[in-house]
C-alpha cells in the first residue's frame, strides 16, 4: 500500500514538473521564425543571432517528409492568429503563395539594398538571395567523364539505361519548381511530353532530393537530379560523385533563391525586422555558401566552393512569377502523370 501511495506521489510530482516545464516561457525580447531551411544549417545561424543581439529566437523547422509545405500551410491556417514573425524559406514558390494569401507584410530591409530587383517582390513582401541550383548528380564509379550527362534531356537519351536514373517526386518541393520552370520555358506541350517520357521510360521516381543523392552516392543509380545543397553534402563526405550544372550551352539551369519575408500581424514586429536585416546581409549570404546550404550568390561575393564547378552559372531565362503561375497546373499534371 505504501508503494502505491509512493507511486501516486511520484506520478503527481512528475506531472507537475512536466506541466511547469510545458507552461514556462522565456521573458524578454524574442522572435518566432518558421523556416524550411535545413535545421542543420539554420540552427547555428539563429544561435549566433541570439548571441549577437540578445534576442531569443524560437524556430519552427520544416522537415522534408512534409515536402516543405507544412509550415507554409501552418502560416496560412494561422492567418487570424499569427504565431510567426519571420518566414525563411529555402525556395520561393511557397513564399509567393503566402504573399498571395495576404499573410505577409511589406518590409524593405536595408541589408537588401544591393540585391538585384529581380530577386525582390515589387511590393517588398519578400526578398530572395543565396541561391541553390538544380543539378545533375553523377556517380563517378559508374560513369566515365565522357559519359557524364550535360543536359536534363539526357534523361530521355535512348542510349542510356533509364533504370540508372532518378528524380524526386515532381509534385513536391524544388523538383516541382523545376517542372514549373520547364513549363514556363518550353511551353506546356513540350514540357508535359518531357515528363511523360520520363515516366514512360521508367526513370526512378523517389521520395525526395536527399534520396536521389543517396542513391547516386551508393551507386544504386548512375545519375539523378537534385539540389546543390544535397549534392554538396555528399561531395564533402568524399563520396565518388560529381556535380554537373546542366544545360549551360542552351537554356541554363534553374537557380532557386532562399526567400525571407515578414509575417503580417506577427507578435514581435520590431524583432522580426532585426532578424530579417541579419539574415539578408551580404556576410550572411557568404556564410550560407561557406556552410554548404547555398551555392549561388545573387550579388557579387568573392567565394568559391570545392563542390560547384568554377565560373558563372547560366540561369534559366524565366521569372519567378512565370514559374509560380504554372504551379497549380504543373502540380495537377505531375500528379496525373506520376501518381498511378
Amino acid at each position, binding site marked *: 500500500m505504501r508503494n502505491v501511495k509512493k507511486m*501516486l506521489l511520484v506520478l503527481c510530482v512528475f506531472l507537475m514538473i512536466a506541466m511547469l516545464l510545458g507552461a514556462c516561457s522565456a521573458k524578454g525580447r524574442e522572435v518566432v521564425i518558421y523556416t524550411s531551411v535545413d535545421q542543420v544549417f539554420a540552427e547555428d545561424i539563429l544561435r549566433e543571432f541570439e548571441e549577437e543581439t540578445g534576442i531569443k529566437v524560437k524556430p519552427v523547422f520544416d522537415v*522534408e517528409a512534409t515536402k516543405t509545405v507544412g509550415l507554409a500551410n501552418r502560416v496560412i491556417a494561422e492567418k487570424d*492568429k499569427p504565431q510567426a514573425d519571420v518566414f525563411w524559406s529555402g525556395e520561393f514558390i511557397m513564399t509567393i503563395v503566402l504573399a498571395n494569401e495576404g499573410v505577409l507584410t511589406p518590409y524593405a530591409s536595408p541589408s537588401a539594398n544591393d540585391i538585384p530587383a529581380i530577386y525582390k517582390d515589387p511590393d517588398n513582401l519578400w526578398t530572395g538571395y543565396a541561391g541553390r541550383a538544380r543539378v545533375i548528380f553523377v556517380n563517378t564509379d559508374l560513369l566515365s567523364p565522357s559519359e557524364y550527362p550535360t543536359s536534363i534531356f539526357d534523361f530521355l537519351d535512348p542510349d542510356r539505361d533509364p533504370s540508372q536514373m532518378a528524380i524526386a*517526386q515532381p509534385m513536391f518541393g524544388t523538383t516541382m519548381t523545376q517542372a514549373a520552370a520547364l513549363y514556363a520555358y518550353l511551353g506546356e506541350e513540350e514540357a508535359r511530353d518531357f515528363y511523360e517520357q520520363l515516366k514512360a521510360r521508367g526513370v526512378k521516381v523517389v521520395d525526395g532530393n*536527399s534520396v536521389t543523392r543517396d*542513391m547516386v552516392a551508393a551507386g544504386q543509380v548512375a545519375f539523378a537530379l537534385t539540389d546543390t545543397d*544535397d549534392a554538396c553534402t*555528399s561531395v564533402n563526405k568524399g563520396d565518388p560523385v560529381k556535380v554537373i550544372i546542366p544545360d549551360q550551352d542552351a537554356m541554363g539551369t534553374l537557380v532557386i533563391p532562399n526567400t525571407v519575408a515578414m509575417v503580417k500581424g506577427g507578435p514581435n514586429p520590431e524583432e522580426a525586422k532585426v532578424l530579417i536585416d541579419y539574415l539578408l546581409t551580404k556576410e550572411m549570404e557568404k556564410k550560407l555558401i561557406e556552410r554548404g546550404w547555398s551555392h549561388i550568390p545573387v550579388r557579387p561575393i568573392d567565394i568559391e566552393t570545392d563542390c560547384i564547378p568554377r565560373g558563372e552559372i547560366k540561369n534559366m531565362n524565366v521569372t519567378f512569377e512565370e514559374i509560380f503561375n504554372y504551379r497549380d497546373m504543373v502540380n495537377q499534371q505531375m500528379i496525373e502523370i506520376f501518381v498511378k
Partner: protein
Amino acid sequence: MIGTRQLMLFVRTLFYSLGTGALVMIVGVFAASALWTFHQKKLTRLLKPLFILSCVMIFVPPYVHALAWADLFYRYGIEGFGASLWVMVMALLPMGLGFSLLGFYLVEDAMVEAGRTLNRDSAVMSAIILPIAMPAMLTGMIFAFLWTLHDFSVPSLFFVNIYSLEIFAKYSATNHPFEPFMLSLPMMLVATIMIVFISGFTKKLMMGLRKGQTRDALPLHMPFWFKCLQTIAIGILILQIAVPVISLIVKVATPSNIWLSILQARRELGFTLVLSTLTATLSVIVALFLARKVIGMEKRSRLLIWVCILLPLAIPAPLVGIGLVTLFSQPGLGLIYGTIWMPVLANMIRFAPLAFITMSVQLKRMDQSLLDSVSVFQKNQMHGFINVYFPMVLPGITAAFMVVFILTTGELGATLLVSPPGRSTLTMRIYNYMHYGSSQMIAGLCLTMLALSLSAGLIVYRLFRKTGGDQ
C-alpha cells in the same frame, strides 16, 4: 468527386493495405502457434523473450525498418510493391504476433482436450482453436490494414504511390484543408467501416481475457508442413528484430556517437519527454473515466460509443494537425494556441483511443467480487479507491501510459503542425537529419528511441504479466 485514375489508385491502395494486413496476420499466427505446438521446453523458453522483443518492436517507427531494409533491397535491385509490402510487414509484425497470441489465449483448455479425444490435433487447430482466435486475428489484421492505408513514407522509398500520397500532393497544391479532406473521405469511410467491424469483437475478446486461460492441454502435434511454416514465421520474426538493430549499430559506428547524438539533441529529448508524459497522463485519465462509463452501458450504446472513441484512428495525422490549427487559431479559441497543449491535444486525439482499449481490457480483467466486497467494507469512496481499486487498475494505467507515451514520442504528422515555436521533438530532429544525410546521427537517435521503446515495452509486459499470470 474522384476521377478514374484516383479510383484505380484507391483500389490498388486497398489491395496493398489488405495484402499487408493479411500477411502480417499469417506470419503472426504461424509464429504465435509455436508456443502451443513446440515440444522442447528449451525452445519454448527461447520463444518467450523472442516474442516479447518482437512485440516491443511495435514502438520502432516504420522509417527505421525502411532505412535498414532499403540498404539491402537497393543493393539487389528489389523495389516496388513487393519491397514496400515486406517492410510494412516487418514494421507491423508485432501487431500480428500480439493479436495472434491474444486469440490463442482465448481458447479454453477443456475444449481443446475434448477435441483431442475425438479427432487429430490438426483438426482441433482448424475446427476449434483458429475459429475462436479469429476475432482477435481479424482485429490485428484490420489495425495493420489501417496503419498501412495512411503511411505513404515507406511505399515512397520503394517507388510505390498510394492514395494517401495523392491526398498529401493535393494538400501541397491547394494549401487549404477542404479539398484534401474531401479526397480523404473514401479512405476515412473504409477505415470507419473497419472500426465498426472491430468494435463488434470487443466483448468477445475481453470476456476471453477475463477468463484467463492456460496452456495445460498442450502441446499439439501438427503435421510437417505446418511446422515448416512455423519455422519460417519465426525466422521472419528474428529478421524483423535483427535487421533494424544490426543496421543501426553498424551505422552508429562507435558508442560515443550515440552519446554525441543525445547530447546534441538534449533540448528535443527534454521536450519529447515532457510532451509524451503530459499526453500519456491525460490520455490515461480520460481513458479510465470513459472505460468505466462505457463498461456499464447496455450493448447498443456501448457499440456506438466504442465506434465514436475509435473513430479518430481513421483520420490521417496531418488532417488532425491542420484541423486543430484551423480551429484554435480562431479568435476566442486561442488560449492554448502556441503552447505545448496543442501537440498534447493532437497526440491525445490520435492515441487516447488506444489508452481506452487498454483500460477497457484492464477493467474487464478485475475481480468483480473483490470490488463488491470493497464497496461494503470501505470507510468512504476515497478509502476504497486508494487501497483497492487503484492498485487493481495500476497495471492497466501503466500499460496505457507507456503505449501513449511511446507513440507520442514517435509521432510526426500532426505534431509538426502544432508544435509551439522554439520546440521540437526527437522524431522531428531525426527527420531533419535524415534529409541532411547524417547517418551516424540518425542511427544514434534511432537507437536511443529503440532503447526507450524497449524499456517501455518491457515494463508494459511485466505489469500485464503480474495481473494475467502466465499470459
